């Protein structure tokens, strides 16, 4: 049963089991909100608030929009840009992640897409192309002192590995202000729940298989916190029988070798889960060792 809805751009709002489920498309991904309640109006308000928050973050941090904060910072590369406090906190966060990870997490690595196009083709860039792009990658080249940022000319930043997870956490927080009922927020597989379901059980979360049949590879029950996945089998290059995964190491400007095809991590917040998954996959063959050593709840698919 799909109910016609006045909600702005919401694709659907329907009863799904014990939940009211709203879905929409934002941040180039399908988004879903589940609210375990009988109260359709309250659930609808939650969906609207979540969607509003998702669209706010998308509009603010999308690298594809010239009027976004990121668009403005990138357009202003070479000169100084003053940012608002929320952006400053995210940049601080990115800065610290860069340090914690010794450069593995790097918001400037997006320019590598110019030479690495993961379209399933054999278009692997040559060394010269990689050397040319190398000087445009590296957070250490960015002058960041809150609230002022200055990118060297030609460099770009994006919150690709952060904004969606941040949006999930923000959206859940917004939802929890509005309603006490159990809520699940799922933006393209990065999700967070407010707590257990009303009967005390966990939310069933399926981990998608990376094989062609796209079957469910695993099922977990989430009592609280968040789950995020890094890695995507749908994006790769294949040359001379060698498969180049789409995970790029910003230090080498090349794909990480031996990385799992996907890493799913459970953590207290979606930002934490997403970042941990990203760092894990960047460890390449050492991914599982890293996850185990750090005591992370994770599911790796190779």
């Amino acid at each position: 049963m799909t109910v016609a809805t006045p909600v702005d751009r919401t694709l659907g709002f329907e009863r799904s089991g014990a939940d009211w489920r709203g879905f929409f498309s934002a941040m180039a991904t399908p988004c879903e909100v589940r609210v375990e309640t009988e109260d359709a109006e309250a659930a609808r308000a939650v969906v609207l608030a979540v969607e509003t928050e998702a669209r706010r973050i998308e509009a603010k941090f999308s690298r594809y929009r010239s009027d976004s904060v990121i668009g403005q910072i990138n357009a202003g590369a070479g000169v100084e840009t003053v940012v608002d406090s929320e952006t400053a906190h995210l940049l601080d966060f990115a800065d610290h992640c860069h340090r914690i990870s010794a450069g593995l997490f790097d918001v400037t690595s997006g320019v590598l897409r110019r030479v690495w196009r993961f379209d399933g083709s054999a278009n692997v860039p040559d060394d010269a192309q990689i050397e040319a792009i190398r000087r445009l990658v590296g957070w250490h080249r960015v002058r960041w002192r809150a609230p002022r940022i200055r990118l060297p000319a030609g460099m770009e930043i994006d919150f690709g590995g952060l904004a969606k997870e941040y949006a999930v956490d923000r959206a859940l927080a917004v939802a929890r202000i509005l309603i006490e009922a159990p809520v699940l927020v799922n933006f393209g597989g990065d999700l967070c729940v407010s707590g257990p379901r009303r009967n005390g059980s966990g939310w069933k979360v399926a981990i998608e298989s990376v094989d062609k049949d796209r079957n469910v590879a695993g099922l977990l029950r989430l009592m609280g916190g968040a789950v995020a996945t890094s890695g995507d089998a749908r994006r790769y290059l294949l040359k001379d029988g060698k498969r180049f995964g789409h995970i790029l190491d910003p230090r080498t400007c090349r794909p990480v070798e031996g990385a799992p095809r996907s890493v799913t991590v459970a953590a207290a917040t979606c930002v934490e889960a997403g970042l941990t998954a990203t760092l894990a996959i960047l460890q390449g063959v050492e991914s599982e060792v890293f996850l185990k050593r750090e005591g992370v709840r994770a599911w790796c698919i190779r």
Partner: protein
Amino acid sequence: MQLKKNRSGVREQIAALSASLLAITGAMAAVSVPDVAYASPGDNPNDNFGPGVSYTQLDSALLVYQESGGRVQAIEPSATLTAHSSAGDSLSVEVIADAVSGATPNGAVPADQLQTFQTPIMISGGHATVTGASGGSTVISLPGVAAVRQYTTAANLLPVDKGFHDHRGAFTFNWSQPLGRISDIGFGGGYSREQDYQAISGNAHIAQTFNGGNTTASLSVNTELDSSFPYGGVPTPLTVMSGVWKKPGTRNKTQLGFVVGLTEVMSRRWLMQLNYSFDSQSGYQNDPYRILSVVDSVSGEPTSYLYESRPNRRQSQSLFWDNKFDFDPFVTDISLRYFKDDWGITSKTAELSERINLGRSFFVEPDVRWYQQSAANFYRYFLVGGDSLPTYASSDTRLGKFTSLDYGMKLGFVLSGRTEFDIRGMYYQQTGDGHPAAAIGQLRQQDLFAGTKAAFVFFEYTWNFH
């Protein structure tokens, strides 16, 4: 430059960092962590009030103060409204009222005989009036002669004036904001008015945070202009106390001070604050109602009472060191203060409080404070007849040597976020030397220390809203 030891795993760092990000951006409004396996070091519930969020805080409070022995009692309600903008600007406005009454030591020493004191009073009408109810005083008004108020103190009791009562109203405001590269800059002002006293104050501050937000250096200056217009006129220092109604007069005092402060986050669990203060006052410092006994050099019996006399200038410095340690659910606060002024007073203060969070919505906080001061060089228990008069003399216990101890207990009820109701009870006791070696004659039999024992209760309700 020093390489920091790697203190925790990457996972813990990521967890704490993520929690901090969401906390600071207000997203953690209700993130709970039901599964301990997910618990991160930063999983404290965020209250959604803080930097980058615009909100308003209302503090309403009531202080009820009572000294033992029927001495001073006071009741002081106050309300503060503070508006914070998301850009970090804040404006706060506070109003305070208080009503004080009760018996106040007048500065005379006890004697083994009845003592009688006369102070000025202005009454309308010319009939002799007896008002036993008026604070234990008698108003004597004879035709053709100005009225006086007279009160007595029984033998072997500390002389107190029971006619003391006053009301005060005060208003303050403070504005503060980041400005360009300056972390915080602001100013404020205040006005306070009592029946016989007025204070106008102004202040300004500037603070800079650096070292990754771990260090804040600040400089604050303040100035105050106080005016005293004593009931019955301004008495001439070291003249005999009398009931003569003097010409109304006003005496001013100006004050100028500054505080240089350094706040340092020493570690995840340790916050330290170090303040140096300098204060300079110039003008009328006397308590216009306070007297000293002049006693016979052999018997120690009072022969007359003189108004006190203090220097016009006073400069003081203090060093204050505060440490807060967070070992959740325990929060320990230890502070030390050293104070010194050019009246010869030095003091040391040590305070320890231990907050214990019992769950998320209730805490208890016992605390103890120890304070010791030396006497001002012009402090006298009494003056001796026949001796030459000193230039300055005061018998105010506040300027004498004593030690005080203060025990308190606070109960806090966290209703939600930073909305909180607190009740705090304190017991304060001064101890000093009631039998100084200089005591003469009958004074050896008296307790000459007029220190205070007081209990007070403080109620505070803090409400934060958007």
